[in-house]
């Protein structure tokens, strides 16, 4: 499993480096998802399966989809920051394909070699995490829920079109 750690670390670094150098925001998002997947594999190898699941479900599943929504909501062509890309040639598939194949290879190797589990042999099970969350960290969980509520209200207020201002503009014109 140690090999899996270093392979995933390499995938994470390479895909993050590719992410910050992309011209197209959607391409960058997809590289970011790949980076998050490899970090989730690293969490699993380190013996934190609950953290790995959270990383995939919340980070790659929810937050990245939020990014996609906003990029699509912006005016068409906004995701092309500097130049417009033509039809992608075959060379456009090489780098992402190789990186994704490394992750697929890791999974098949782990499944078929029978060494499924964390590298150290010991993992912190999800029930321990749950007991800690609703025991010692109960007030932190409550504060997190308040933070989410504040984020919801703030996002609604910032993103809505101001109806009063638009009415004023309509009357003046």
């Amino acid at each position, binding site marked *: *499993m*140690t090999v899996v*750690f*270093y392979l995933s*670390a390499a995938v*994470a*670094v390479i895909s*993050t480096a590719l992410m*910050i150098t992309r011209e197209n*925001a959607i391409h*960058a*998002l997809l590289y*970011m998802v790949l*980076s998050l997947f490899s*970090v989730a594999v*690293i*969490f699993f*190898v*380190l*013996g*934190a399966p*609950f*953290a790995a699941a*959270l*990383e995939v479900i*919340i*980070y790659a599943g*929810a*937050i990245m989809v*939020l*990014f996609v929504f*906003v*990029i699509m909501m*912006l005016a068409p062509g906004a995701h092309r*920051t500097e130049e417009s890309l033509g039809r992608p040639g075959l060379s456009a598939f090489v780098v992402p394909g190789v990186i994704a194949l490394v992750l697929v290879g890791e999974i098949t190797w782990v499944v078929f070699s029978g060494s499924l589990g*964390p*590298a*150290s*042999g*010991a*993992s*912190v099970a999800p029930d321990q*995490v749950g*007991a*800690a*969350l609703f025991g010692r*960290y109960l007030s*932190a969980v409550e504060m*997190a829920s308040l*933070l*989410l509520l*504040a*984020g*919801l209200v*703030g*996002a*609604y*207020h*910032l*993103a809505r079109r101001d109806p009063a201002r638009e009415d004023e503009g309509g009357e003046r014109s």
Partner: protein
Amino acid sequence: MTAAVPLEHSLILAGILLALGLTGVLVRRNVIFILLSIEVMLNSAGLVFVAAGAHLGEPDGQVMLMLILVMAAAEVAVGLALVLALRRHFGSLNIDDASEMGG
């Protein structure tokens, strides 16, 4: 606890990811890329917590990762709403266009 992966290697990886995210924030001028790079940095902070928690065999690291996730979700929601407002106000996603305060 004899971990097969040394703690230092996880910390080095987190450091590399943090440096990459910081580079992205400093180099890119597109607001979306800046937000994504901030996500990378938050993710590397979570990696440090999980690695330390796994090293000590305690669940606290994963609890901290969950709190970081909540913080990242709230930050992204507000940040993307700000991106929409910026786009509506300035008509571009370039962060330099929004520097009219001259800060």
